[in-house]
């Protein structure tokens, strides 16, 4: 089996087995829950049969045997000679697992042999009816429901064929190229319209010329001896009329062609974009089986429901969703749902329910994973947090429910006492958090004791198309994702109120601070003619809204996101790029980053002129020591800030590594104190970044983290931090001692 043709054949076989194994898994699951459904058994038979046929072609005897036995089982069950329940279904699942080994080329080449004979024995036993104690118990009812399936096996087959056609593998690189080309062809065709309009103008010029000729004809006719000139003019007029008609018909043709071309390129563009979307169900195919097996293993009874299976999701996101969902589900089964006995005692139905709901809301993909299990005991959680010394007892008393639950998402945090195989060994939900952050989403937990736990996952629908408000800043277009834009306003300049030198506008009863977009983005602004209307984009949340003043609003566009060239690194305030309809590039704003920049700008801090004066020599000696505190938890941030301020240091804060890096590049810090686990850029990355920049090589860094493992300590110090402290060090003096050792006392006047 080494020649290339066989190789492709085997690859095809793998694909085919994959499809049928999926059908088998689904079919068997539904057979288990509704054994009376005859059509299910039909599809099971067909799938087993197809695998058998395919395996025969590529000559894999073991698969032929197993598939054959399975087919026999299903057939006999269909004839009601045996009944497939409990253990026999388990064995059939095991057989499916065996078959699914053959979905990878490696396994085909070295087929596993150990289980084969055992499986064959069991399947033969099922067939010989030794295995079905409850045989024929419910025959009458199942017989009845069996009839319709016999009548119409055709539709079932059709739908299965459809499934097989519906997927083709295309490399994502070529799909991206296609998208680029489709967009470009859209732009190019749009240029045809102005061209055809210019032809119409040309036609009108001709018509005017003809009118002039007509007048010339009249004038000449009035002259004596004009017959020769008249006939010449007449000839010219005839010819120009023919040319004009010709031109008109050509223009008509061109216009028809343009309409057609526009429509085609438009359709192509939409189709290419749509091709990135897959139904949600495609990403969760393995879950029903996983839930069944696990709950069985743990002796729990669980109904697994999926709502919104057809919700379209970008394939990139779908791929990345599997791991976090898997983790949450395992958690729900293991820690959430109680054993049947316990549930009955609590007055709940014996069977627990785990439900995944997928839906689109406000341009986001919303996933809810809900279980009706025991929920999370907040008191126990609080104790665990204190026990792990993540915070002090007093501090923990003040933490809100949401803040408490956020601890669950920290690395290495698990409240479950005994280590179970199911939901991992001490690996907490931080996996979920990290994975989601990678694709621009976030997770929230809601829980009620004895009623259950719900995980809310919010994600962007796609990473490829984003609806945006495009605005001009310094004569160049920038896009603001609509999901993050409050609204846009046109204001008169006289409506601006100035309070202590800062411009404000009043909108819906609240004062909104105005910021120039060029300032926030740090663009040097070329002089702009003064106008009496201002275009304002409202950003930020209700508690802290900002009005960003732009030069001009160009309107809403669906933009296909292109990542910025990796050679540019992370550009402050910018997320990605895209192309406008006219083919011109546009930059997409990173709203979170921008809001941070505005915050710092308004706090009168580190931007613009301030930077230059700080950098000037001599001033450094007189000013107070400035420390940058980086942590994503407001509690930690504020604790550190307070401690340091009490000792006379100047303190700035940043909410994550990216924010910090932006601040460090602008400001002049004597010391940086950072956490490790933060969104966007973690502490290690930040330290590494600081150390690899010649300007900050010597700036001292202290890492303060929940992580108290030796590896982390070593990693932190190796990356270039001067100190590695744990968050418990706030209680004693070691934190402040470290600071003082590195940069001296706060008051240095």
């Amino acid at each position, binding site marked *: 089996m080494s020649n290339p043709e066989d190789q492709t054949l085997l690859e095809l076989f793998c694909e085919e087995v994959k499809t049928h194994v999926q059908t088998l898994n689904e079919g068997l699951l539904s057979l288990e829950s509704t054994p009376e459904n005859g059509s299910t058994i039909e599809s099971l038979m067909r799938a087993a049969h197809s695998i058998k046929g395919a395996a025969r072609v590529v000559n894999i005897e073991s698969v032929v045997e197993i598939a054959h036995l399975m087919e026999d089982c299903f057939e006999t069950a269909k004839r009601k000679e045996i009944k497939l329940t409990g253990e026999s279904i388990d064995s059939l699942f095991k057989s499916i697992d065996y078959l699914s080994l053959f979905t990878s080329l490696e396994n085909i080449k070295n087929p596993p042999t150990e289980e084969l004979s055992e499986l064959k024995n069991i399947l033969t036993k099922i067939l010989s009816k030794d295995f079905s104690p409850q045989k024929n118990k419910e025959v009458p009812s199942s017989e009845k429901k069996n009839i319709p399936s016999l009548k119409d096996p055709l539709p079932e087959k059709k739908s299965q064929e459809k499934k097989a056609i519906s997927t083709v593998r295309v490399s994502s690189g070529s799909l991206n190229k296609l998208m680029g080309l*489709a967009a470009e062809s859209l732009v190019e065709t749009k240029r045809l319209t102005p061209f055809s309009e210019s032809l119409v103008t040309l036609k009108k010029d001709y018509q005017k010329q003809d009118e002039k000729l007509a007048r010339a004809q009249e004038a000449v006719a009035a002259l004596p001896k004009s017959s020769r000139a008249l006939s010449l003019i007449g000839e010219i007029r005839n010819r120009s009329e023919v040319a004009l008609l010709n031109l008109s018909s050509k223009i008509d043709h061109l216009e028809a062609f343009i309409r057609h071309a526009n429509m085609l390129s438009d359709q192509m563009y939409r189709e290419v974009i749509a091709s990135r979307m897959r139904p949600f169900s495609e990403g969760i195919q393995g879950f029903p089986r996983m839930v069944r097996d696990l709950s069985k293993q743990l002796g729990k009874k669980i109904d697994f429901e999926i709502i919104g299976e057809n919700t379209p999701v970008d394939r990139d996101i779908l791929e990345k969703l599997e791991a976090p969902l898997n983790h949450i589900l395992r958690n729900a089964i293991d820690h959430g749902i109680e054993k049947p006995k316990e549930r009955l005692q609590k007055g709940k139905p014996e069977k627990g329910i785990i439900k995944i709901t997928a839906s689109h809301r406000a341009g986001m993909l919303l996933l809810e994973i809900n279980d009706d299990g025991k929920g999370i005991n907040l008191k126990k959680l609080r104790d665990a947090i204190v026990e792990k010394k993540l915070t002090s007892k007093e501090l923990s008393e003040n933490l809100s429910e949401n803040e408490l639950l956020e601890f669950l998402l920290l690395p290495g945090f698990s409240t479950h006492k005994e280590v179970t195989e199911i939901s991992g060994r001490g690996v907490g939900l931080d996996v979920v958090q990290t994975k989601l952050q990678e694709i621009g989403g976030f997770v929230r937990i809601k829980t009620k004791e004895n009623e259950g736990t719900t995980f809310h996952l919010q994600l962007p629908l796609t990473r490829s198309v984003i609806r945006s408000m495009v605005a001009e800043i310094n004569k160049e277009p920038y896009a603001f994702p609509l999901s993050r834009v409050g609204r846009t306003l046109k204001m008169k300049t006289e409506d601006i109120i100035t309070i202590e030198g800062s411009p404000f506008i009043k909108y819906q009863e609240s004062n909104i601070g105005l910021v120039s977009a060029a300032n926030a983005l740090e663009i040097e602004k070329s002089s702009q003619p003064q106008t009496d209307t201002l275009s304002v984009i409202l950003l930020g949340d209700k508690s802290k809204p900002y009005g960003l003043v732009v030069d001009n609003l160009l309107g809403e566009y669906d933009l296909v996101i*292109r990542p910025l060239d990796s*050679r*540019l690194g992370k550009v402050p*305030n910018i997320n990605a790029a895209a192309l406008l309809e006219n083919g011109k590039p*546009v*930059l997409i704003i990173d709203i979170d980053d921008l809001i941070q920049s505005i915050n710092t700008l308004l706090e009168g801090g580190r931007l613009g002129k301030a930077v230059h004066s700080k950098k000037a020599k001599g001033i450094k000696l007189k000013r107070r020591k400035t420390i940058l505190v980086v942590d994503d938890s407001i509690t930690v941030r504020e604790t550190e800030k307070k401690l340091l301020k009490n000792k006379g240091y100047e303190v700035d804060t940043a909410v994550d590594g990216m924010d910090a890096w932006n601040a460090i590049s602008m400001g002049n810090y004597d010391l940086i104190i950072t956490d490790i686990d933060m969104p966007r850029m973690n502490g290690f990355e930040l330290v590494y970044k600081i150390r690899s920049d010649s300007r900050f090589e010597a700036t001292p860094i202290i890492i303060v983290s929940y992580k108290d493992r030796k590896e982390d300590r070593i990693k932190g110090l190796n990356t270039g931090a001067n100190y590695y402290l744990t968050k418990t060090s706030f209680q004693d003096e070691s934190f402040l001692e470290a600071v003082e050792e590195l940069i001296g006392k706060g008051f240095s006047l």
Partner: protein
Amino acid sequence: MKKEDETGASRLLNRPSPEGYLEQWGEVLSQAKEAEQQDLSSVLIFRLKNEWFGISTKKCKEITESRTIHTVPNRTDNIFLGIVNIRGELQLCTSLHSLLGIEDKEDFEKTLNTRVYKRMALLDVKENIFVFPVDEVFGVHYYSDQEVTETPSNLDKSKYILGIVPYREIHIAILNADAIYQDLEIHFS
């Protein structure tokens, strides 16, 4: 068609070749071709301000019309101009003018073309693309190694120049595409 066959011109063109002619030419063509191919390099000739440059056609595969450059805040400087859309893909646009230190020179009035268009050229090294605007493109020129004279050592940016090749009334500075590419990469790292 028959009529034409009998004209003088066709008779002249269809006459049998003199003895030994085919053999002689056969030999000439088979030899000369190989020798020439080894020696000739092809460069794309373009102008930046008042100087003419050539860059290997192996490294510069495409010339396109001038397009809008979008600056990138915090990144755009004298070398990196911004991003530019080349057939639906966003590429980095850089200034060869600045890299070669000729951004302040006068724009040239003596030109090889009858009409002058600003263009953009794509420098393509190992699948990594840099775009740079040029003030005028002339075309492709083939030269042999013997024609190359050494770069005057007083030239400011001599590390980017492999040598000088005379062409008509002008001198073409042959650019070292790899050195330029390397320095641009360093600029971005």
